C-alpha cells in the first residue's frame, strides 16, 4: 500500500499554511514527517485524516483517492488528552467503536492492548488517577486498538521512561512488520533515524526535502572533511577560516570545491600528524538544521 499526498495547498484565512506539499509513504516502512514548530506538520496530518479538506491537492492510496470508510487511520496526537473523569475501559472501547468496531470486538482488542502494554490493572480506573507516562500508553491504545492501516504517531516517545520507550519501539516495529504505513512526527531525531526509511522535511509550508533517508545522506554535498589529530592548533593556524573545531575535539574542514577532496586529504596527511581522516557524513540532525533552519 502506498500513501501519496499530492500538491496539497491549505490556507486559513489570509495565512497560507501549506504550499504544494507532496510526499509518498509506503506500507511496511516508517515515514518521518519533520519540521520546525509551526511548519505545517499537524495541518498536513489533519488533511490526511480528513478533519478539514485541502484547498487543492489530493490524498491518494495506491493511486486512487483515499476512501475513509475503508482505510482505517490511527492517530496519537501531540496534544494528548482523553476524558480525565471517565473509566479507562469505557473510553477506550468508545473510541474503538467510533472507528467502526462492534462493541464486542472493541472490548476484546482493548483488553489485548491493555495486556500488551502492561496496563491491565488500570482497566477499571479513572484516567486522571494515572501518571503521565501511563496516560500516554492509554492514549497509544486509542491509536492502535481498531487495527488501522495507517498509524500516525506525533511525538510518541515524549514523556516515556527508557523501559516504556523500549516497549513502544517493539510495538512500532511490530506494526511496521505487519505492513502498515507508520507515519512519525518527532523532534527527537535519533528515533526517526532508528525507524524511518524515508522522510520529508517541511519548512514554512513547503517540502524542503523528501525521499529515502540513505539516499538523502549519500547525496549530501561531500564538501567537508573530519580530521582527528594530536596537533589541531597548527592546522587551524594554517587553514584559517576554512577549519573549525567540533565538540569531540576533531576538526571540520570546509572545502571550497568538492572535487579538491583528494588533493586536500593528501596534503593534510603529508604535512601534519593525522590520526584519522574521513569525508563528513551528515546526521539527520545536521540535515534537519540545514533544511529547516534557514529560509524562515
Amino acid at each position, binding site marked *: 500500500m502506498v500513501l501519496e499526498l499530492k500538491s496539497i495547498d491549505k490556507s486559513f484565512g489570509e495565512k497560507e499554511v501549506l504550499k504544494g506539499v507532496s510526499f509518498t509513504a509506503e506500507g511496511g516502512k516508517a515515514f518521518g514527517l519533520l519540521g520546525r514548530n509551526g511548519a505545517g506538520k499537524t495541518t498536513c496530518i489533519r488533511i490526511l485524516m480528513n478533519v478539514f479538506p485541502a484547498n487543492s491537492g489530493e490524498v491518494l492510496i495506491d493511486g486512487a483517492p483515499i476512501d475513509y470508510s475503508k482505510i482505517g*487511520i490511527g*492517530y496519537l496526537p501531540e*496534544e494528548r*488528552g482523553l476524558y480525565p473523569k471517565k473509566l479507562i475501559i469505557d473510553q477506550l472501547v468508545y*473510541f474503538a467503536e467510533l472507528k467502526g468496531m462492534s462493541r464486542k470486538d472493541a472490548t476484546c482488542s482493548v483488553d489485548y492492548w491493555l495486556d500488551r502494554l502492561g496496563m491491565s490493572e488500570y482497566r477499571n480506573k479513572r484516567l486522571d488517577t494515572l501518571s503521565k507516562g501511563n496516560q500516554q500508553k492509554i492514549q497509544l491504545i486509542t491509536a492502535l486498538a481498531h487495527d488501522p492501516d495507517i498509524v500516525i504517531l506525533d511525538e510518541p516517545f515524549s514523556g516515556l521512561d527508557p523501559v516504556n520507550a523500549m516497549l513502544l519501539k517493539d510495538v512500532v516495529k511490530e506494526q511496521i512488520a505487519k505492513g502498515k504505513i507508520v507515519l512519525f512526527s518527532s523532534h527527537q531525531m535519533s528515533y526517526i533515524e532508528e525507524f524511518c526509511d524515508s522522510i520529508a522535511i517541511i519548512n514554512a509550508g513547503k517540502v524542503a526535502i523528501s525521499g529515502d533517508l540513505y539516499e538523502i545522506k549519500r547525496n549530501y554535498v561531500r564538501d567537508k572533511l573530519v580530521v582527528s589529530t594530536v596537533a589541531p592548533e597548527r592546522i587551524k593556524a594554517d587553514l584559517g577560516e576554512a577549519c573549525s573545531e567540533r565538540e569531540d575535539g576533531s576538526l571540520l574542514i570546509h572545502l571550497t570545491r568538492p572535487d579538491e577532496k583528494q588533493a586536500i586529504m593528501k596534503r593534510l596527511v603529508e604535512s601534519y600528524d593525522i590520526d584519522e581522516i574521513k569525508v563528513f557524513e551528515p546526521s539527520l540532525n545536521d540535515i534537519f538544521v540545514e533544511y529547516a533552519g534557514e529560509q524562515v
Partner: protein
Amino acid sequence: MKQFGKILKFELNGYLTNKIFVGITIFLVVAIAIVMFIPNIIGLFESDDDGNIAPADLPTMLVYAEDEKLSAIVKQYFEGVFVDYNVKEADGSIDDLKEMITSGDADCAFVMNGEASYTYYVNNLSMYDSNTAIADTVLQEVYRWKQMVDNDIPSETASEILSVQIESSTEILGKDQMQNFFYTYIMIFALYMVILLYGQMVATNVATEKSSRAMELLVTSANPTSMMFGKVLASCIAGFSQLVLVFGTAILLYNVNKEALSNPLIASIFDIPIELFIYLIVFFVLGFLIYAFMFGAIGSTASKLEDINTSVMPIMFLFIIAFMVVMFSMSSGSVDNTAMLICSYIPFTSPMAMFTRICMSTVAWYEIAISIAILIGSTVGIGILSARIYRVGVLLYGMPPKLSTIIKTVFKKQ
C-alpha cells in the same frame, strides 16, 4: 448514523453515571414527595385539638361606645364575625384602653364615635390587617337595618332585604385563565430552568472536551454533525427523563393522595387537558433543542471553561427577555398583546410565548401550525449551523473568535 447512536449512548451514559446528576434527580423526587404529603403531615399534628382553641388564648378585641346599648349591639355583631378574637366591652377611659393595647393586654380596639363612625386602635398595624374592612361591612349593615326599622319597615323584611343573595353563573367559551394559570406558570418555569441548566451543561461538556484535548482525537474519529446531534439529544433525553421522573412522582402521589389534596388550586395544576400536554411536549423538546444547539456551538468556540460564562451571555439575555415578556403578560392577564403575538412566531421565544397563549387564550390551529413549523425549521437549521461552527470552533485555541470570523468561516465554501 451508526456513530451517532454510539455517541448518543456514550453521552447519555455520562449523564446517568454522573453522581451530581443522579443526586439532584433523587433530591427533586424526594422533595416533591414531601411537598405532596404536607397536608397529611400537618393533619397528623392537628388531629388532636380539632382546630378549636380555648377562648382565653385568643387575642382580645375591645369595643367601646358612650352609648351602652350601641356598645352591646356592636359587641354582639363583632363576636359573630371576628371568630379569631375574644371580643370584650371596654370600661374606663380611652387612655386606659390605649394603655391596654400598648402593654399588650389587648390586641386592638374599636371606639365608636357614633353609629356610623369609629376609631380603630392597634399597636402595630399588620400589612394584612382586614379588621376595619370587616367592621365597615358589619357596621354598615347594622346601620342600614336600624334605619329601616326606625322607618317602620318590619325587622324581618329589613333582614331579608339586607341578606339578599345574587345568584350567578359563568360560562367560559374560551379558556379559564384562572384555572390554567398555575400549570402554565409551572411549565414555563420548568422550561426556563431546564433549558438554562442543560444548555450550560452542553456548553461545558463541549468546552471540557476541548480543554482536555480529547477533541484532538474526537474530531479525527467522528464527524462533527454526529457529535453535535449526539451530545444535544443526549442532554435532551437526560433532561426530559429527569422532568418525567419529578412530575411523574408528583402526578402519581397526587392520585394516591387525592383526598388530602382536595384544594382546588392543586387540583387545577394536575388537571391538564391531554392536547395541552402534547403541545407542552412539542414546544418543550423543540425549545430545548434549539437552545442546546446554540449552547453547544458556543462551547466549541471557548478554549477554556472560564470563557463560557461570558460567551453564553447573549443567548442568556435573549432567553431571559423571552421569559420576562411571557411572565409579565401572564400576570397582567393579557396574553394576546402585541409583544406576545410577535414572540409566538420567533423561534427563540415561541416555545414559551406560543405555549402560554395556547394555554391561556384561544389560538387558531393554523397559527399554532405556523409557529411549530417555523420552530422545527429553525431548530434543524440551527442544528446544522451549530455543527458547522463546532467543526470550525473545536480546533481553534486561544482567544474566543469574533462572531464575524466564525460566520465568515462557516459560510465559506468548504
